[in-house]
């Protein structure tokens, strides 16, 4: 079950790491979305229109997957080390927000792609 390599190393060294990692991932995705938007429809736009939807949906899908990974990993740590001091903060600051984010990315993706 152990994650290997760099990711495994990061995850083994701090119970809190899913939180900053999640924030960084979501920040990068948000910047990516902004980049697509500005380069598709600003004055000097160069992204062809046919790439706008695929690029955006790929980023939203990545957001959904990363939220899911962060969420499950946070919960796994919670149940593995039940009772330690950071259980409640972990629930409020990691698990609930990331579940909401995962649902948000998925729902947005379904909504925008016409599946929902």
């Amino acid at each position, binding site marked *: 079950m152990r994650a290997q390599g760099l990711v495994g190393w990061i995850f083994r060294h701090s119970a809190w790491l899913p939180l900053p990692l999640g924030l960084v991932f979501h920040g990068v995705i948000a910047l990516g979305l902004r980049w697509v938007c500005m380069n598709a429809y600003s004055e000097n736009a160069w992204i062809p229109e046919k790439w706008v939807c695929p690029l955006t949906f790929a980023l939203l899908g990545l957001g959904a997957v990363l939220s899911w990974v962060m969420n499950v990993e946070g919960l796994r740590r919670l149940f593995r080390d039940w009772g330690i001091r950071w259980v409640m903060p972990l629930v409020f600051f990691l698990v609930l927000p990331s*579940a909401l984010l995962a649902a948000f990315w998925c*729902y947005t993706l379904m909504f925008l792609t016409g599946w929902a």
Partner: protein
Amino acid sequence: MRQEEKGRDVIQGTGKALALALGVWTLLFLSCFALLSHMTDVPSISLSGRPNRERRAVVAIRDPEKPFMQWGTRLFTWPYLSRHYGRAWLFTQASKEDQKEAIVAAMNEALRSCDSLDLFLLAHSNSFHEWVGILDEELRRKKLRMVYNTGCYNARQGETWLELGAKTYIGHPGNSVSPPFYVFYTRRWVKGSTVRDAFDEGNALAKRLFDRLERVMPSKIDSDKVWQTSHAILFGAGEMSIGDRP
């Protein structure tokens, strides 16, 4: 030996924690999903297409706006139109007269090659009826079907559009906040509701959204006032659905 047993316990414990995490995640996810659906719109997944897809065409026009708005229009609009129409065009303009020739050419091609043409005019107050007026009269009277116009005060063009050949026209009467209606209406129209049903539901859901926003921000939004200028008005026939021929 003891070390091996300990190792096995750790693995089993980790497996249990992971299984529990996945179970709780599923419940959390479904709760959040239900909350989002309640706040916006209920998903209605339908894998089967509407009949006559290859025989209908659509042209959508997004007028000059901030990049973010144009991006949002494309993300929401294009997947629906490209999936539910045999021929689909979405033009995003950089200025008011931008791509006029290409837009008129697309409408001409749609009228020549398909049985029906729908128009989505996703633009501020506009005069696109003048562009449609130069199309072949016989073809547009026969094939122009549903026209939806988000433009402020463009409900007043209702009779003009019917005279041009549209079988049904939907517009807004005042300085409107039309995107909520557009989203609710379009999702129902492409999934097979009649114009009338999609229109009624679109209006009801838009009003519900304005009411909710007023409850959250009472000092910023007066739902009744917004509603007076933003509700949609239907002209012409309301019984057709996307799969019907005009």
